[in-house]
């Protein structure tokens, strides 16, 4: 672990003067006691790994990443061997650089500046099922151990891109979170984290058509409360969102495969091909055949 993690240095949050990537296939139990962190991503390059953020345990599996925000505390504890933690921490100036380029660069990607929310990334602080981010971290591990010419150029650019995506994701999260009608900001943040965790879960489980009760359980909420909150945040019901996930997947399958409509319905968990076609046309404005791979 880097020096900045030493809780004795009393730097909260610590300042990182570069990007840091730590990845090791542990051959024995490992423990890093709790210490302050800055913005970073925690994952398991293989299997799963336990991270303790602000005292809470988060088991992060391969293909998932945990986004840790500025000022949170982090501990890593592994009681078993064959664990492969991978931790990427961003240069502390990166938020300024990225925010500036996104706001004042050639393309204006942010709808409004972050003036009222300077670098608050707490809306992203949770586990994300994002194979894309995971793949980038794995490619960085390869780059770090490799001997390619200008490997750092590739690494710096990959990290920069990754962070730009996170900034946009955070802005979107913030925007959605503001739909939650509660008085306390901390309550809003907690509700948003639970709802978005359940939303991620739905995206992974949509083909099994999970019940409202099962989804609400992921958010640790009563089903009716969850339904109300989900609708408030995303202006859509969980059921409609599940249908939307299925239709998007169906479109992807149509564009990239030669599967029949009934095969696609089966793959996405749709019982009726007729209702599928009706909903598909309503969602994309064209019948499924229009998207069929030519």
């Amino acid at each position, binding site marked *: 672990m880097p020096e900045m993690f030493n809780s004795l240095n009393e730097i909260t949050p610590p300042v990182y*003067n*570069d990007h840091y990537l730590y990845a090791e296939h542990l051959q024995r139990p490992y423990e890093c006691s709790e210490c302050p962190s800055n913005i970073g991503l925690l994952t398991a390059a293989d299997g799963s790994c336990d991270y303790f953020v602000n005292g809470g345990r988060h088991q992060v599996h391969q293909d998932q990443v945990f986004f840790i925000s500025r000022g949170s505390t982090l501990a890593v504890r592994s009681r078993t061997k064959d664990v492969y933690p991978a931790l990427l921490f961003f240069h502390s100036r990166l938020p300024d650089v990225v925010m500036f380029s996104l706001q004042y660069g050639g393309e204006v990607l942010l709808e409004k500046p972050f003036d009222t929310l300077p670098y608050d990334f707490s809306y992203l602080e949770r586990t994300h099922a994002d194979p894309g981010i995971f793949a980038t971290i794995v490619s960085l591990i*390869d*780059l770090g151990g*490799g001997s*390619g*010419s*200008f490997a750092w150029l590739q690494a710096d650019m990959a990290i920069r891109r990754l962070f730009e995506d996170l900034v946009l994701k955070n802005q979107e999260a913030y925007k959605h979170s503001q739909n939650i009608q509660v008085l306390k900001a901390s309550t809003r943040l907690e509700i948003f984290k639970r709802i978005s965790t359940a939303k991620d879960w739905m995206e992974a489980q949509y083909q099994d058509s999970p019940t409202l009760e099962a989804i609400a359980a992921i958010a640790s909420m009563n089903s009716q409360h969850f339904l109300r909150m989900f609708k408030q945040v995303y202006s859509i019901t969980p059921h409609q969102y599940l249908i939307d996930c299925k239709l998007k997947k169906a479109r992807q399958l149509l564009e990239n495969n030669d599967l029949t409509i009934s095969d696609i319905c089966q793959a996405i968990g749709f019982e009726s091909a007729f209702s599928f076609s009706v909903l598909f046309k309503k969602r994309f404005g064209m019948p499924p055949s229009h998207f069929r791979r030519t």
Partner: protein
Amino acid sequence: MTQQFDLSKFSEFKLRVNVNTGIENAYRAWASSAGVSSWFLRATYKDQQGKFRSGDELAQEGDEYALSFTTNPEMVICTGKVLKANGRDLFCFSFSKGCPVTISIYQEQDETIIQLIESHLPTDEDTIRKHFIGDTKGWIFYLTNLKSVLEGGLDLRNKNAALKSVITQ
């Protein structure tokens, strides 16, 4: 006894390569996108109005450039600016950490010398490790490839997108 390093020595490095070609040809290898793409990374130059220069057109001072791997053209890995371009034998562009890389082309002992100086590098430990050492390593391969390509030899770059972590990329 502890050896004290003069860290200021790490603020720049110079590399020279003799190439059996004319000065004009060597200049094109740096100042045109087709030239750069033939031995280094896939390059594009954009003028100050934002218009892409054609493959053989020479870049001018103030132009912006973008570099990507030939095996993955969509992924831009470096962007920067042309800081000087005299159209003959001097070409300078921003590169690592925005630091200038100056290319001078001249004759010595009846041979064309391409000289690369990367300067103004910060001298903290991280920059030395990542940029001074990393860039020296990178430029040594690519200058060798420049010599090979300009002398009509092999293009030594890795063409296999699935192959990673080799000095030829």
